[in-house]
């Protein structure tokens, strides 16, 4: 690897510059990668280690206050807590699963609709982009007005077809499904974009061959297109799933602290946030977070394994 600098002035300074340049070029791999990795490392590794430590103490009130080492007591408390923790796990899982299923099925349908070019394509694409970039907190406020039981447009619309008004966000049983609906509205477009990118990169031949063999549209989709799309579908599930598990903004914006007065929409993330910043129970919240983190890593690992299996 020869090092040629354009300016070939003789002398000490030029040589040391050459030396530095040669050194920089030799070590460019880490020279380039290190700053970003150190930045992220400092901001992750240290806080994560601290969270792990806090989860083993009875820290509360203020992180500065003295705390005692209590071993796995927090984990025991959390894992036997059927009032807040397990319902929160249930809500997190059902929120994520229902939202994901709706988003992937709807997203696939919309992506198929958009697959072949048509007139006005540009406008549909704009419509798809808008919910995606809208600020989640603002979106939460927008749905709060639309789903308001007394003045909301949702109940007006139901009134037109003769359905009695629904409590939506203020109902104990309907709050979580309503927030899932909001998530589906905002994030289905994301799934559409990913699946559409997958569809357009598919080769046409398999589809063509199936058509020649007389397969109808449904057969071609389920036996040709869908299997070929599986890796992309799993990527979409992976990307969306991570964010869905961690949903916070719309839940906190629509129901506030503790996921509403009956904790209707309290997912793990909302629960942990509340424990940390509304109740200052740092030891307990750290235990919840570590468990939450394990759930996220676990489901990601499962999906990655699945992806490797279908890619083969």
């Amino acid at each position, binding site marked *: 690897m020869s090092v040629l*600098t354009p300016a070939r002035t003789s002398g000490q300074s030029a040589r040391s510059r050459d030396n530095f*340049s040669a050194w920089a*070029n030799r070590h460019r*791999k880490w*020279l380039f*990668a290190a*700053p*970003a*990795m150190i*930045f*992220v490392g400092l*901001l*992750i590794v*240290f*806080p*994560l280690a601290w*969270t792990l430590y*806090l989860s083993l103490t009875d820290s509360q009130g203020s*992180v*500065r206050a003295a705390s005692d080492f209590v071993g796995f007591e927090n984990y025991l408390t959390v894992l036997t807590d059927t009032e807040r923790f397990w319902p929160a796990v249930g809500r997190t899982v059902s929120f994520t699963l229902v939202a994901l299923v709706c988003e992937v099925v709807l997203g696939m349908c919309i992506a198929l*609709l958009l697959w*072949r*070019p048509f007139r*006005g394509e540009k406008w*549909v694409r*704009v*419509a798809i*982009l808008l*919910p*995606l*970039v*809208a*600020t*989640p*907190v*603002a*979106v939460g*406020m*927008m749905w709060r*007005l639309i789903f308001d039981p007394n*003045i909301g447009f949702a109940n007006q619309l139901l009134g037109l077809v003769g359905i009695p008004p629904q409590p939506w966000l203020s109902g104990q049983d309907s709050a979580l499904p309503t927030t899932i609906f909001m998530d589906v*509205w905002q994030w289905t477009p994301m799934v559409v*974009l*990913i699946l559409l*990118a997958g569809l357009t990169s*598919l*080769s046409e031949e398999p589809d063509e061959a199936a058509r020649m063999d007389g397969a109808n549209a449904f057969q071609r989709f389920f036996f040709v297109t869908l299997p070929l799309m599986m890796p992309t579908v799993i*990527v979409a599930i992976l990307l969306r799933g*991570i964010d869905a598990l961690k949903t916070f*903004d719309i839940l*906190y*914006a629509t129901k506030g602290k503790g996921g509403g007065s009956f904790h209707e929409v309290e997912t793990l993330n909302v629960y*942990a946030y509340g424990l*940390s910043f509304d109740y200052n129970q740092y030891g307990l*919240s*750290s235990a919840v*977070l570590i468990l*939450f983190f394990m759930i*996220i*890593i676990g489901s990601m690992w499962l999906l990655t394994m699945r992806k490797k299996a279908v890619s083969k």
Partner: protein
Amino acid sequence: MTLMTESQTSAGQRRGTARRRKPLRSSGYKVFRVIALVAVVLFLIAPLFWMLLASFKTNVDIYDAGKSFLFTPTAENYANVLQRNNYFVFIFNSFWVAFVSTALSLVLGVPAAYAMSRFTMHRSALVVLMARVIPGVSLLVPWYYVFSNLKMVGGFEVLILSHMFVALPLIVYIMMSYFDSLPVELEESAQVDGLTPIGAFRHITLPLSVAGMATAGILAFIFSWNNFMFALVLSGSKTKTLPVAIFDFVSYASIDWGGLMAAATVVTIPIMIIALFTQKYIVSGLTAGATKG
């Protein structure tokens, strides 16, 4: 490789093949498709339109079902929000935090993504991408402790740092898949012509990556602008960003719906305008790496 070029050309000729195929499709499907597309567009746009309408209504009109669509528009809500509640400050804060954190993340992230792509540093990339997976709350308690000891909570620095945490992984992720698709041969021939490896990166690769950096930068800006949780904990009265300002809007007793919708419109409109003009970049950024096998 052959397969890829094939699929690319077929994508290029898609318009042609589709036209040739049209007679095969029944007219029933065509009608169904138009209706379905209209329904999709309505479903996605109507709520936003409703928010926009309400932001121009007085609170009396919002409570009147008969005035859903026919009402005398008023700009009073906007005047209220922008002047009385001083939203210009929050707009500036949001913009400044998003802009600086995006710029700094590009400076750190682009070379890192380059190294990770060219030297296939998968494990190092995983470290950076962990930042996308980890729940933000688990970082906030230690951050809050450290930064409040350093007397930094409520300042711009800590907000920018926390938003870089959102922007950087995104930029690394997008730029890595961009560099993966950029042929190494260009750099190699530049090195044969006498450039150092770093010189080749600076004079050949970087100029070719402007589109990728625009993609990554725009998306990072949007994600930072929209971020709520970090600012909720780490911002002070002087550095409050728009999402937090909107959230605070409802913590008072009764909700001023008109004002709230005006505030929600104020926060979403700038980002939507950016999105409309940079549509192509946003789509390629969001789908980056999604179709790799």
